[in-house]
Every structure is written in C-alpha cells, then in structure tokens.
C-alpha cells in the first residue's frame, strides 16, 4: 500500500497561513492503515492546530473529516459540504488524494499534511518496508519475487555488486541499520527453488521511460470504459 509520514506541525501551520477556516481531511484507506492520515490522525492534527492557534492568539476554526478514499471523485462528493465551507483544506491523504482533492474543488486551497514516501509492506505492526517502485516493467519473475529496483540500494539489474557482504548492503539506512542485499536474497531464494541458472540471465539496461522518467503516465482500459 501507499505509505506516508506526517509533516512537522510548524510546516503545516506555515502552509495553512492566515486562513481562518481550516478543514483537516483524512483519508481512510492507505494512510489510515499506515496510521498517518486516517480519521483518527486527522482529529489529532485538528486538535493540535486548535491548541497552537489558541496559544498564538489566532482566531482559527479547525474542523476535521475523512473521506473513505480521497483519490476517487465519488468519495470526495461525500465531504463536499465541509470542503466548500473551509478556506483551506489540510489533506492527510497520499499525494494522489491531495491532488484529487485540489482538482475536484479547484480553486480551493489544498495543502499536504504528509510526505508520501513509498509503496510499502507492513512487515510487522507499525513497521513498513518499501517493496515496489512502480517502475512500469516488473522483473521479479526472474528475480525470485524480490524487487531489485527498490530493494537493491543501487537498483542494479545484474547484481550483486562488490558492496555485498554477508548478505548485507554496503549502504545502511539513515538510522545506521543494515540493509539486506537484495541480490543475496535473490540468490538464496533461487537456490532454494533450484533455479540458480536464472542468476546468469544478462539483463540489458532497464527502460526507465516506463517509469516516471518517461513523463506522467496514463492508463486506459478501453474495454472497461462506460458505454
């Protein structure tokens, strides 16, 4: 699913600016599951904004709501009244939801309260790991179900590199935690599957034009379009 992290309060307050009527809009899909931007978190942020405004002596009205999904027009219709009544919407949805909100209610000012960060998997409760880079050309059929694009620090298509040691990458996380070498994981799993020969597939340079490097992407399913 899509994961996001909340922005610092000061940044959100700066984005809200001098607007008097603020609507904090959560999204009850991905960002609710990653405990960042669902209705509960929207209520918490709204409370924080009210407390801060009271402290600073600013007269601001802050309400909160949540759409079932901010990235679909139909669900945005359900909160339209609240959005229309606000001067600014602080959206806690992912970047898709925030832009859907801004587009649907243009020229309403819609600002983000979160930084959308990855397509992640909940490894355990409250821990998410990046698993997909939406690169547009999936290779994990050849790599034992492990994505070298986002799980190899260098996105190598023909790994491992010389920085792989004892199953770890030479790169560490910003918190100095070890990162598994994706190509070591791939080798281990291919071996367990008895498909070691797949390690020797020579992959040409990846076509990144199918990723975001190719400009904004669009997907159309003609057979599913309404008649």
């Amino acid at each position, binding site marked *: 699913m899509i994961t996001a992290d909340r922005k610092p309060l000061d940044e959100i307050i700066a984005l809200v600016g001098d607007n008097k009527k603020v609507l904090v809009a959560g999204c009850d899909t991905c960002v609710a599951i990653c405990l960042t931007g669902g209705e*509960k978190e929207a209520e*918490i942020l709204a409370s924080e904004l*009210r407390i801060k405004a*009271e*402290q600073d002596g600013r007269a601001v009205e802050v309400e909160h709501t949540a759409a079932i999904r901010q990235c679909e027009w139909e669900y945005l219709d359900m909160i339209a009244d609240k959005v229309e009544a606000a001067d600014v919407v602080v959206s806690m949805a992912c970047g898709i939801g925030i832009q859907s909100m801004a587009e649907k209610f243009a020229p309403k000012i819609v600002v983000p309260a979160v930084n959308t960060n990855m397509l992640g998997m909940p490894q355990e409760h409250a821990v998410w790991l990046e698993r997909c880079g939406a690169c547009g050309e999936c290779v994990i059929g050849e790599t034992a179900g492990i994505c070298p694009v986002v799980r190899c620090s260098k996105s190598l298509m023909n790994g491992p590199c010389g920085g792989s040691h004892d199953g770890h990458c030479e790169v560490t996380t910003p918190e100095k935690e070890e990162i598994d070498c994706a190509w070591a994981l791939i080798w281990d799993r291919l071996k367990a599957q008895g498909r070691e020969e797949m390690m020797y597939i020579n992959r040409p340079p990846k076509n990144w034009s199918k990723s975001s490097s190719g400009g904004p992407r669009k997907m159309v399913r003609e057979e599913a379009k309404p008649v």
Partner: protein
Amino acid sequence: MADADVKAPEAPAAAAAPAPTAEAGAAGAEAAEETPRKPVDPDFEPEIIVFACHYCAYAAADLAGSMRLQYPSNIRMIKLPCTGKLEVIHLLRAIEAGADGVYAAGCLEGECHYLKGNLWARKRVNYVKTLLEELGMEPERVEMYNMSSAMGAKFAEVATEFTNRIKELGPNPVKREGVNPHAAARAALGGVAMPDEAGSSTAVPVEEGHAE
C-alpha cells in the same frame, strides 16, 4: 477534602510503594533544570484529569479513601475498563479543553487484566508528550503511572506528586473560561468511559461513604 491539608502521606506511601516511577522522576528532574520559569502562583489550583483503570487505580483510589489518606482535590477521575482504551486524542482533548495536567493510572506492568493495555497506554502517553513538545508545551503535563488496587497509598502519593508538578508548571496556556476539561475528556471518550460508582463520582476520597 477541600479544607484538608494537602500533605503527601509520606509514611504509608513509602511502605506500600517503594519508589515513584523512573519516568516521573526523570521528568521532574528535567522540569527542575529548566527553572527560569515564572514563580509558582500560590493561589493556582490546577485542574487535573486522571484516566484510571477500573481494575487497579480506581480501586486504589477507593482504598485511599478507606484508609483516610489525604491527597489534593485537584484531580478529577474518569474510569476506564483498561488504560489500553485510552487513545492519543483523549489525552489531547483534555489538554485542548484546558486541563493543566493529565495522567493515566493503570495496572502494574505485567499485571494488566487485558495483558498489555497498560503498556499500550504508556506508549500513547509518551507519544502525546512528543505532540506537546511540538506545540511548545511542557511534556510533563501528561504522565503514565502504574499501581495495583492494593496501593491506596501510592495513589495518594502519585496524586500529590503530580499536582505539585503541575503547580510548578503553572496553568495550561490554552485554558479558557467556561470550558470544562473533565466534561470534554469524558465526551471525547464517549461510551468508553465507565459510569462512576455511586458515592465516588469524583476523586473525593474521605467524605463519601467510606465510614469505618
């Protein structure tokens, strides 16, 4: 209670509860270091909301009453089935409504009736501390305590210690006339808050129905 001397019940507290929690001690020490604070107003009577677990702290409060222990009348209790029911927003709503201090009192760690509710509560209280810091408020305004239902003296000691802490911090900067933090916290909890038992609707321990 109002006319009572609000002195900590030192001897029984020491016997029943060997030490205040490490967190409380550390937070107190931090507050002491930052002392270029305005002088303590002797007339300031803080409003303190206590989220008390039905299985321990609430019973400990009753016991404190039965033992005729004295503790400040500043605390207003809300009974929960378990402190694990306490969410971040409940603590924040109490602060927003002007509570000068808020604490949760749950079972001793490892002895939660629902196994881990008190451990969840501690994490949430700690998270609210980070939110208060973000807001420029003192994180010491919220705290988590643990006690068993047999620790009447500990209950009184915690109430006294926390009230003194909040008196030193001074009033909540967002306190407003006409807003009742106890009612706001109860409203935020909705059906989660348990009804108070007859005769112990607030934290008034001695006078209410605890005749020997």
